[in-house]
Structures are given as structure tokens and as C-alpha cells.
């Protein structure tokens, strides 16, 4: 067959593409794997050269690191901060987006521009003044200091407004004829349809909040209001040679996000494809 050389060449191209792609994927997983192995090393197996690549399945470092800090408390703080931020940011952006799409009033676009203006203000310009403001409000070193500054989500308003504007106006007209108020319409008709948008916004706030480090580092000093990342950084500075326990702490705090990601990666990939970064 005359097509044989061409098709075998194509097959080889296909094969090498698959192999190189796999190598790249493994390279991205490798640093997590190294931490995983190190977290399970036996004491004699850490400082060996060359490094080994198979886990010892020794869970002792996890037990040890678990007893080194009040992990449940840091975990609770992290979850509380994330979920409260999500609740507040969703509430404020739903109301604002609704007003910007279902109410007719003069200057509606100006108001929307005022919201978008926030995107122009870089976060590092706000670092010190927000610290001063929280100081003046007596909120430094509290869980709220890590929640309230993120209570207004421009990104949330933007996405929800876009969604609400795409809803047929006839829905609202019909609801009003049935005597529904704006709040009633929002709650029982508009929001249920916006579920997937709400989920995307919540997801991004969750990841950003779980991974935030600089802000909690700045505004908190007491352990009992700090999130996981700050505790891990403290362990890093205090036990810089205890690789097994540090790695165990790293794996422990990374795993919840990795598991979450593997379950809902479709959502995340769709969000990223639209060019939405995660606020860190």
C-alpha cells in the first residue's frame, strides 16, 4: 500500500506526542510526589544520597506533626474564613448585580463603572492602608480581619450581572403580574437559575481564601485566629531541617484542595479558560 509509510510516520508522531505529554504531566506531579515520599520516610531514609523514589509507608511523621500543633483549630479557622467570605461576597454581589440588571435608574452604568474601577486598584497599594483601617476599627488579629476586606467581590458582580442581563425580561414581568416582589423574584426564580455562576464564584473565593498567606500573615499574631498556611510557614521557619514532618504538614494541608480539584476540575478549567485568575 502506498499510504503505509505516511501512516506509520503519523503513528510515530502520535506516539511521541503521547509520550512527551505524559512526561510533562509527570514533571508537574513530581514535586508533590517527592513531598509525599519524604513525608513517609523512615528516620534513616531521609538524608541518603542519591534520593530514593519509592515511599516507605511510614505514617509516624504524620502522627508526630499532628501532635506538634493544634491542626483542628487551624483547619477550622481556614474553613470558617473561606465559607464566611463566600457567604458575604455572594450576598453582596447578588444584590448589587440584581440592582444593576433588573432596576432601571439613571446612572446605572456609572455605578457599574465604579465597581469595575476597583479592578484598577492593585492589591499591594491597599496592604498598608487596610492594615491601618483594621487597626482603627479594632479588628486586627481577628478572624474578621481576614474576611471583611474580601466581602465585596467585583468579579462576582461582573459574572452575575452578565447572567441576569441574559435572563428574558418576560420572567420578571410575569412574576410581577403574579404579585412577586423583587426579593421574592430574586430568591425563587433568578437565583436557582444562576446556580452554576454562583458555584463558580464560590469556588474561586474558596481556593483564593484557602491559599491566602500574605494577608493573614500581616493582620494576625495569635495562633487561635490563624489559618493553615501561616501555621505551616511558622513550622518551616522553626523546624527547617525536619523534612519528614514538614513534608507531612505540607501534604496534609494540600490534600483537601487536590481532592476538591480532582472532583470539580471541569468547573475550574471552564473558569480559567475565561481568563479568570484566582485572587491570592
Amino acid at each position, binding site marked *: 500500500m502506498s499510504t503505509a509509510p505516511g501512516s506509520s510516520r503519523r503513528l510515530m508522531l502520535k506516539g511521541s*506526542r*503521547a509520550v512527551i*505529554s*505524559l512526561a510533562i*504531566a509527570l514533571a*508537574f*506531579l513530581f*514535586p*508533590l510526589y*517527592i513531598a509525599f515520599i*519524604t513525608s513517609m520516610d523512615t528516620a534513616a531514609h531521609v538524608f541518603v*544520597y*542519591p*534520593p530514593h523514589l519509592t515511599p516507605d509507608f511510614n505514617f509516624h511523621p504524620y502522627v508526630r506533626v499532628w501532635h506538634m500543633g493544634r491542626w483542628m483549630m487551624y483547619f477550622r479557622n481556614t474553613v470558617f474564613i473561606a465559607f464566611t467570605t463566600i457567604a458575604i461576597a455572594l450576598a*453582596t454581589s447578588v*444584590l*448589587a448585580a440584581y*440592582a444593576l440588571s433588573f*432596576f*432601571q*435608574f*439613571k446612572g*446605572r452604568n456609572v455605578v457599574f463603572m465604579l*465597581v469595575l474601577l476597583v479592578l484598577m*486598584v*492593585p492589591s*499591594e*497599594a491597599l*496592604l*498598608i492602608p487596610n*492594615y*491601618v*483601617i483594621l487597626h482603627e476599627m479594632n479588628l486586627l488579629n481577628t478572624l474578621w480581619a481576614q474576611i*471583611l476586606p474580601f466581602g*465585596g467581590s467585583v468579579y462576582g458582580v461582573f459574572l452575575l450581572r452578565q447572567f441576569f442581563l441574559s435572563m428574558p425580561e418576560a420572567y420578571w*414581568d410575569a412574576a*410581577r403580574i403574579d404579585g412577586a416582589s*423583587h426579593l421574592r423574584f430574586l430568591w425563587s426564580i433568578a437565583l436557582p437559575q444562576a446556580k452554576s455562576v454562583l458555584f463558580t464564584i464560590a469556588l474561586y473565593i474558596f*481556593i483564593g481564601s484557602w*491559599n491566602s*498567606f*500574605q494577608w493573614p500573615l500581616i493582620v494576625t499574631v495569635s495562633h487561635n485566629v490563624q489559618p493553615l498556611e501561616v501555621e505551616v*510557614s511558622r513550622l*518551616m*521557619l522553626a523546624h527547617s531541617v525536619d*523534612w519528614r514532618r514538614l513534608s507531612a*504538614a*505540607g*501534604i496534609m*494541608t*494540600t490534600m483537601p*484542595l487536590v481532592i476538591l480539584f480532582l472532583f470539580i*476540575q471541569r468547573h475550574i*478549567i471552564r473558569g*480559567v*479558560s*475565561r*481568563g479568570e*485568575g484566582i485572587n*491570592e
Partner: protein
Amino acid sequence: MPNLSAVPRTARARSRHDVLKAVLFLLPMFAFLLIFTYLPAGVSLVLGFFHYHLLGVNTTFGGLSDFKEALTYSVFWTALKNTLLYALYMIPATIILAVAIAVLIDQKSRYYAMIRTFVLLPYITPVIATSIGWLWMFNPQYGILNAVLQALHLPTSQWLLSPTMAMPSVALYTLWHGLGFNVVIVLSALANIPRQVVEAAAIDGASAWTRFRQITLPLLSPTLLFLVIVTTIATLQAFSQVYALSGGQGGPEYATTTLLLLIYQTGFQYFHFSYAASMAILLVLLILGLTLVQNWISKRWVFYQ
């Protein structure tokens, strides 16, 4: 006639009624924006020009003295140089690698969907927690990176302990963490390129490289501009990874002191607030300036469909 009230009101009547409600709906959002964005944006300017102290000492007007102090402080210039050099490594590396990987894995199958998932995975991991594994990989004595280099008979490195290699090492970590974001964006841009154009060129006998250079790349250029701007902003704001990989110090010998780390140290370790605020303003101006320059350059070569 009771059902008269059900007749839609005129737009004007509705608007008068709606204004009050609209204000109520907008109020919570604007309360947050006012307190935590508009107000602090103003305060940051004030802080730059006044000497502010947390503990009751009177605020005094300092004029440009804090800016002057920043501009004559040698560590500020070191931090500026580090930050710009870091951006210089990161921008081309990010764009080239993202395009290369995206073109490679731009295939419709479950296999490549899985590859894409793994490439994006590091992006959602916490920086401090995942930098631990990297610190261990960078370890000059026991780390895997030197072990691999040695196995390949290549010169080994001191990585984070070497003043010249420390910043590139941080860049390596950041590429690992953030490249997936860029790859996914390029993939979605590739999906929007009309297939017929590329196929027509192939029928006309254009080689794969020519098709890439003449068709794919120009059509990708708006996306690449977006990524250049996003990467520039992200690298100029580098903090967590530098903090984690240098033990919060920015060393060795200030080699990894970025502007934001210096601002953090000045403001929150030494509590020179006004000084830190004036450096923050300079950083903001730098970001703004670079974004404008990139926008201006882009008008010359970005191809819009």
C-alpha cells in the same frame, strides 16, 4: 377594575420607584468597597506623604521625604533590580512554555484531558505548603535536582543558597505553580481558531511550522498579550513563594528580596508605615507604567480578528 394595577407601569414611573430599592440593593456591596478599597486607596496616598504611627504619635506631614528616603536606600534598588530581573525570566519562559505545552496537548481525547488536569493541578495548591517539597528538591546535598544533574554528568548548583541561582530557582517554582493557568488559557484560544483556515493552508502545502508561524501565532497574539500583562503583574507582586523559599528573609545577600517582600519587612517587621507605603506607591506606578508600555507596544503587533 382591580387588574389595572397589573398593567406594566411606564418606564418612567418604574424608574422613580426603583431608585430607592436600587440604592438598598447596592448598599452592602458599596459599604465593603468604600471601606476596603476606595478609602484605603486614598489613605495610601496620605500615608506616602505623611508620617503615620500606630501608637498615638501625631501624624506629621512628611512631603516627599519618604519617597526620597526610599529612592536613596540601596536595598530598595536591589529589590527593584531583583523584581525586574525576575519578571525578565518569567515572562518569556511562561509564554514560550505555555504555548509549546498547549500546542502539544491540544488534542481531543480523554488522555489529553487528563494531561491538562495534571498540568493545571499545581495552580490550585497552597504556595507555602507546596514549597516544602521544592525546598527539599533544591537541597544541594540530598536534593533530587542535583542528583539528576550529577547522573547526567552536568555541573550541580547550590540553588537557593547561591546568590546568582536563588532567583532563577524561585522562578522555577513559580513556573511549576502557575504555568498550568497559562496553558489552559492558550488551549481555549487555540480552540477558537477556525479549523478551515489551518486546513486550507495545509492543503496549499504549508508545513506545520509555517502554519504555526503564519496562522496560529498571529491569531493567538491577543491572548499572548493578555498573558504577558497578567504575568508581569503577578511577577511584580511575587511574595509568598519568595517568603517560603528564602525562610522569610529574602536572602542570600538580598538575592531574593522582591519589592513586595521589602515592603512587608519595612511595614510589618520594622513598622515604618509611611516608608513602606511610599514604596508601595512606587511599585504601583511601576506596574502601571509597564502595563501602559505593553499596551502601547501591543498596538504594533497584536493581530485582532
